[in-house]
């Protein structure tokens, strides 16, 4: 019975602690390492006359290409059952070329049956178990890689022109037209930005790269520490708890007015203080402090 994928004979699995004395684990079967090849020395599992070469199974595949070695094959997806067993050292015989199936007591696969009729030999050899009518094209169909990625695992890109400390011009939104300092990119990909608040009224805020023009002016904010708690969760819109419908009050609309939390004020003050120090050291600080918008 051949492995339908590779054409190699299917070999019965022999456990490592088999009592069969002819069996040897692959590790003991090193036959002379001494070759010039550093690679075979490292692995120690090659005969010297076998040079490591590109894995033929993996030829033509884009993933899992590797050299032909038991170590590589043990993790190779493409290998057949016999490859796997050989690489794990479970096969009889030290080289793949001398595979032979395990001697076992076989049940009769073929049975002789008598048939009637003249001049036709009177007997037929009939299989006990019939061959299957249908073989799948692949024994184990390879599953296609699922390319759906959740949003929080997306790759976030950042334009090369935007680096921490860059002055950005906001081009849309509530603060359009203002020049703000870029602090860092958050996990969702949005940019964390601050006015600073005293200079232009823009607080610590998230904005999308697309609504921003990066200027060439950059501040050195290596030493500016943004509090760790300032992240995407921090800026998430707070869902107002819907009050239970009291009798006769189904349409009561109590619009919750947004008020700045103390947390935000603290963080704003701490970040801005550091930033203003950086700005004061700039040569063009008058420009920064002079802007009104």
């Amino acid at each position, binding site marked *: 019975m051949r492995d339908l994928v590779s054409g190699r004979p299917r070999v019965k699995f022999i456990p490592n602690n088999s009592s069969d004395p002819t069996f040897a684990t692959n590790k003991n079967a090193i036959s002379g390492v001494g070759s010039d090849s550093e690679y075979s020395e490292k692995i120690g599992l090659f005969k010297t006359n076998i040079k490591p070469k590109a894995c033929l199974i993996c030829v033509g595949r884009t993933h899992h290409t590797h050299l032909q070695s038991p170590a590589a094959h043990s993790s190779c997806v493409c290998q057949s059952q016999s490859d796997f067993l050989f690489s794990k050292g479970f096969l009889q015989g030290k080289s793949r070329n001398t595979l032979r199936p395990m001697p076992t007591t076989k049940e009769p696969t073929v049975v002789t049956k008598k048939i009637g009729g003249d001049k036709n030999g009177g007997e037929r050899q009939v299989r006990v178990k019939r061959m299957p009518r249908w073989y799948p094209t692949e024994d184990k169909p390879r599953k296609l890689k699922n390319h759906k990625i959740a949003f929080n695992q997306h790759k976030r890109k950042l*334009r090369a*022109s935007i680096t921490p400390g860059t002055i950005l011009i906001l*081009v*849309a939104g509530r603060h*359009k*037209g*203002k020049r703000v300092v870029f602090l860092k990119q958050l996990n969702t990909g949005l940019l964390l930005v601050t006015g600073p*608040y*005293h*200079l*232009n*009224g823009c607080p610590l805020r998230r904005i999308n*790269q*697309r*609504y*921003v*023009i*990066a200027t060439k002016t950059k501040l050195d904010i290596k030493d500016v520490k943004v509090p760790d708690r300032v992240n995407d969760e921090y800026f998430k819109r707070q869902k107002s708890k819907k009050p239970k419908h009291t009798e006769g009050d189904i349409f009561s609309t109590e619009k919750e007015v947004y008020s700045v939390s103390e947390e935000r004020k603290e963080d704003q*003050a701490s970040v801005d203080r550091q930033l*203003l120090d950086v700005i004061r050291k700039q040569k063009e600080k008058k420009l920064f*402090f002079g802007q*009104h*918008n």
Partner: protein
Amino acid sequence: MAETQAVQANPAKKSGRLYCKAVFTGYTRSHRNQKENTALLKIEGVVSKEETEFYLGKRCAYVYKARRLTACPGHDKPSRLRVIWGKVTRSHGNSGVVRAKFRKNLPSKAMGKRIRVMLYPSRI
């Protein structure tokens, strides 16, 4: 700015024009037939095909006034201003004219009128 935290944040000045001025010159057309789904915009200051590269993909808006008041997102009061949004799709010809597609086709009375080409989605 030498003042301490007691100082109010500087009052925000209103931002200036954050869009490029453009004119809706007409629809894509052959001599005697026109295709109203694509509009041609002449952006001020853009005179060659190379210069249009910046504007590709930018959002554009045809802003106009109507008689009836309609609700406006983000504002309490309804207003008479209305917008048709679109985007610059590609350049048109060699002289800096640009093609744009709007969510609804532009009305023909917009020909010769101002279209705002915004600076977003920004690529710089």
